[in-house]
């Protein structure tokens, strides 16, 4: 597998050579690519092999997977046809999915994927397409079907791949967050937002609870944002994002820690919104503070023993990018798009996800 930051012209040449490509980049650049054997999603944020974290509206992040797969087919899904996605994956293969953020397909997948038929029967890896944070209210994230040239604002694009005999695909996640020692939080229904929460079994207004938690925290810090040192609290306020709630909710799924990130400002009347849904019956805790993301990540990486040459795809979360100040910093051999959500069988947040071919 070859992963690289490419110019439009370099990528056009790869497409002309009929390479099978996973592409990420700004919508305007993706729209200029010719038809071919590729799928794409919008984001201007990347973890790159050379510079580490970077923002670019001109460059494309390109993974050439031609030599790693036996066959590949591209299929578009709607929110209604997404329940077929796990069934459509070929045996001894994997599926790579991109969904535009905040679309009905995003919501449907996030809420229902664990209940889709054949969940987990084959690896499903992918990401939620993004936009530059300056464009949050102006531009919609998009995914692209390279075979047809179609740009999709609502739906999903999936590349289903079969592997050569003797090879297997395996998904991993690296989540530096741990559950904190505080209250156990549960919810009475599934959803991307919650008006109420059960705090150690006692029902409370969730926004009031979180405002109290936020007022007790002192986790403001400085970060390098597009080359400028910024107070992260001020920057997030400008972008109308949550301040002082940088730490996600964390659920323990039989030893796999799954994050739910906070989205937008907390409003006492409208409740608390998330980047991924909370589920009824699952126990959550607020994450423990993580002062050194890169250091914590490096320790976990050593434990994972992942071989760089085996990584077909990886992606990280824009919240990790911002909160952990990843611009110009490297997360070892894990490179790829920085997204508004990551998919490792199901939607996860603030988590590095990857697919290995062994």
């Amino acid at each position: 597998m070859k992963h690289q930051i490419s110019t439009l012209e370099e990528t056009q040449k790869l497409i002309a050579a009929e390479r099978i490509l996973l592409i990420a980049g700004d919508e305007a650049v993706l729209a200029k690519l010719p038809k071919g054997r590729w799928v794409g999603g919008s984001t201007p944020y990347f973890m790159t092999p050379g510079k580490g974290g970077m923002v670019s509206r001109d460059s494309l992040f390109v993974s050439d997977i031609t030599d790693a797969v036996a066959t590949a087919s591209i299929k578009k899904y709607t929110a209604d046809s997404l329940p077929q996605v796990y069934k459509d994956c070929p045996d001894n293969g994997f599926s790579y999915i991109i969904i535009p953020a905040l679309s009905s397909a995003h919501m449907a997948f996030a809420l229902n994927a664990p209940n889709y038929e054949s969940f987990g029967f084959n690896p499903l890896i992918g990401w939620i397409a993004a936009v530059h944070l300056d464009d949050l209210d102006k531009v919609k994230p998009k995914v692209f079907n390279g075979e047809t040239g179609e740009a999709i604002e609502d739906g999903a694009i999936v590349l289903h791949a079969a592997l050569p005999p003797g090879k297997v695909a395996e998904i991993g996640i690296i989540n530096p967050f741990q559950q904190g020692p505080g209250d156990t939080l549960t919810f009475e229904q599934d959803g991307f937002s919650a008006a109420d929460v059960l705090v150690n079994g006692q029902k409370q207004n969730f926004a009031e609870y979180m405002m109290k938690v936020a007022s007790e925290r002192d986790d403001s810090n400085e970060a390098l944002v597009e080359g400028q040192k910024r107070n992260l609290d001020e920057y997030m306020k400008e972008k109308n994002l949550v301040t002082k709630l940088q730490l996600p909710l964390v659920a323990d799924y039989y030893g796999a820690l799954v994050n739910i990130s906070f989205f937008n400002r907390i409003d006492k009347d409208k409740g608390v919104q998330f980047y991924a849904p909370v589920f009824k019956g699952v126990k959550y805790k607020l994450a423990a503070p993580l002062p050194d993301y890169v250091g914590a990540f490096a320790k976990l990486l050593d434990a994972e023993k992942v071989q760089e040459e085996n990584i077909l795809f990886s992606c990280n979360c824009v919240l990790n990018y911002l909160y952990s100040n990843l611009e110009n910093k490297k997360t070892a051999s894990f490179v790829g798009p920085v997204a508004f959500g990551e998919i490792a069988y199901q939607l996860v947040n603030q988590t590095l996800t990857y697919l290995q071919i062994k």
Partner: protein
Amino acid sequence: MQVPAATNQAWSDIITAKKTYALKFLAAKILLGRLIASVNLDPSPDNVQACAAQLQGLFAKNTAIPSAKEDLATIFG
């Protein structure tokens, strides 16, 4: 290895948390998180058996994946 049938008691014991294991296969852990929550809300025998069948089906389809193989060895020896 041959994956034991869904009626094998070991699957139900995992679903009902009578026995716990340190598993490695990510899909199994994610599925188990949901299935155990489901059984906590509805501990009826029918639901336990349906959840056990889902877990068994997941492992049966993933016997080639190294972490799933390790988990089967952990559960069934």
